[in-house]
């Protein structure tokens, strides 16, 4: 029998550890990866082309569906790019609300990322705990936007509506008995801000629990330490951003370095790794959750004190309030034109990049003055990170390829767009 040296293994597209529809063609020497060739595009929906056929407002919900594990933050650069082209100033309260939800989304994303990475490398319980907290966050989203996942909440010029004064409560049903409902409703007795504040008080304790489960866990460390090491120079060359770049020891965070919205008024720290391995990136994400929690706390305190408008008063961009629309002819015309024809954005181009939970998420808009974008390019962090798969997985075992996919924190809605 001929001796077989290298062979090729098809990993995915239906593999549970592939985090979606990733087809990874691995060339193996024994159990060692010689070459990893990710085949992506199985979830390609041509969001950018679809946006060219729709008015600016109609595309907002598409953005939610890109990275479907961190929804609201996706809309942020899109509305920011439109606002830059229009040259409008967003009310301060809307900026705070957006920042607060960006950070809530960041926690939402990191909880999934860390939970499922632990699941991939064999720690079953983590994901159960992180999904318990994700449930609370989904409730916040539902109370604010009306949807647990795809909020479509941010608008060019602000946000769709103000925060609700009352948090919805659970009712007894055949799945939840009176005792469960009572304990669930304890935190939900006040407004949404009360509920968020209660969550921020509880959350550091949860983080401690996760760290107890993972940080010094022997198996966790064996699987993550010294896996997928990327030096700072290589991380820059490969276009890494976000936790992937900070894990390699580059102190770069758009929230600090190129502050947008109200980040320059908030107090938070940037965690940085030293070795650039999977374990450092895990620690960075863990600390980012605690910092996000700090930011949310500050936002809640500010939002309590400062009521005000949450969307601009320019009715060529934002619709007039419904009562006014019913009473005034001019407002009716504005309303009608806005929802049939849409916003006319002046000709020009703008790139808006934000510090997304996964890295830099940017929207590059070209407008020719029409009511639809001429070209929209979405720059997603996960796409760039996955392109480094070959370099990161080379020389590692097959099982480490799974760890590396986990540490990249990829979501295919985002990679394939």
């Amino acid at each position, binding site marked *: 029998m001929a001796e077989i040296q290298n062979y090729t293994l098809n990993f995915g597209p239906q593999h549970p550890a592939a985090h979606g529809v990733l087809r990874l063609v691995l060339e193996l020497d024994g159990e060692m990866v010689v070459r990893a060739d990710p085949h992506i595009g199985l979830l390609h929906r041509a969001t950018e082309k679809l946006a*060219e056929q729709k008015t600016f407002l109609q595309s907002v919900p598409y953005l939610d569906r890109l990275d479907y594990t961190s929804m609201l933050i996706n809309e942020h650069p899109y509305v920011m790019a439109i606002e830059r082209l229009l040259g409008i100033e967003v009310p301060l309260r809307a900026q705070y609300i957006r920042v607060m939800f960006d950070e809530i989304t960041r926690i939402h994303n990191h909880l999934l990322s860390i939970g499922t990475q632990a699941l991939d490398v064999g720690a079953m319980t983590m994901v159960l705990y992180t999904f318990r907290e994700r449930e609370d966050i989904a409730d916040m989203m539902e109370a604010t936007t009306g949807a647990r996942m795809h909020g479509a909440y941010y608008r060019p010029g602000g946000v769709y509506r103000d925060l609700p004064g009352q948090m919805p409560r659970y009712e007894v049903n055949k799945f939840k008995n009176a005792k469960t409902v009572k304990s669930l409703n304890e935190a939900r007795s006040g407004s949404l801000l009360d509920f968020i504040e209660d969550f921020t008080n509880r959350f550091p304790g949860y983080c401690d629990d996760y760290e107890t489960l993972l940080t010094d866990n022997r198996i966790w460390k064996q699987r993550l330490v010294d896996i997928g090491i990327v030096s700072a120079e290589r991380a*820059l*060359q490969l276009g890494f951003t976000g936790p992937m770049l900070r894990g390699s020891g580059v102190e770069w965070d758009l929230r600090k370095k190129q502050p947008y919205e109200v980040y320059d008024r908030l107090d938070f720290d940037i965690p940085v790794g030293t070795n650039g391995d999977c374990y450092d990136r895990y620690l960075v994400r863990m600390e980012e959750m605690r910092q996000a929690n700090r930011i949310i706390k500050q936002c809640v305190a500010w939002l309590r004190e400062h009521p005000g408008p949450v969307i601009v008063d320019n009715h*060529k961009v934002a619709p007039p309030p419904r009562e006014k629309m019913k009473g005034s002819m001019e407002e009716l015309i504005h309303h009608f034109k806005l929802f049939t024809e849409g916003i006319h954005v002046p000709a020009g181009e703008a790139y808006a*990049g934000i510090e997304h939970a996964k890295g830099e998420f940017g929207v590059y808009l070209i407008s020719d*003055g029409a009511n639809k974008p001429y070209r929209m390019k979405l720059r997603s962090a996960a796409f760039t990170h996955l392109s480094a798969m070959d370099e990161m997985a080379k020389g590692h075992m097959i099982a480490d390829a799974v760890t590396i996919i986990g540490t990249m924190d990829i979501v295919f809605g985002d990679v394939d767009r």
Partner: protein
Amino acid sequence: MSAKLEKLCQNLRSALGDRVGSINCALDEVTLVVAVADYSAVAKILRDHPDLRFEQLIDLCGVDYAAYGEVTSAWQEEPAVAPRFAAVSHLLSISHNWRLRLRVFAADNSFPVVDSLTPIWNSANWFEREAFDLFGILFEGHTDLRRILTDYGFIGHPFRKDFPISGYVEMRYDADQKRVIYQPVTIEPREVTPRIIREENYGDSGRG
């Protein structure tokens, strides 16, 4: 324009000399347009020059300017004279904390070719594959220019303005042949909201 962007423009002019096609600063962003022949040389200077130091390529995308400024989104058969395809990249300098947009137009509209930036910034690899896949822009010097997002065996470049939104083929399972087959699309393209460009100050009071 802020002092920082002013300085960036100056540095670009002094470092690149007559290689600068045009520098435009709008909405707090600097756009540099270069000739296709100078493209990779300029990129190398942008990365290595101590006054510029763009260490990161954040984004690279193709743009099809064929229908720019046209009122309808329907494709019109017209002899395209102006350069149609451009590769637009967004660069970021970590050390200077500034950004730059670099645009290069491909010379030939029927066979657009520009240099690959992969040797200068490795992150260009997949971005260029994507631009090739979606727009058919060829990147000379790219070692692995395969399609990336579209289906295996896909024909055409879907993000070009003359490619219909519905595509040309659809896929379904054929019960008789017991396999998945491709057939011409059965849906008609339709436009719910027409594409409109209004004159300036349209709808302002006193203008009807």
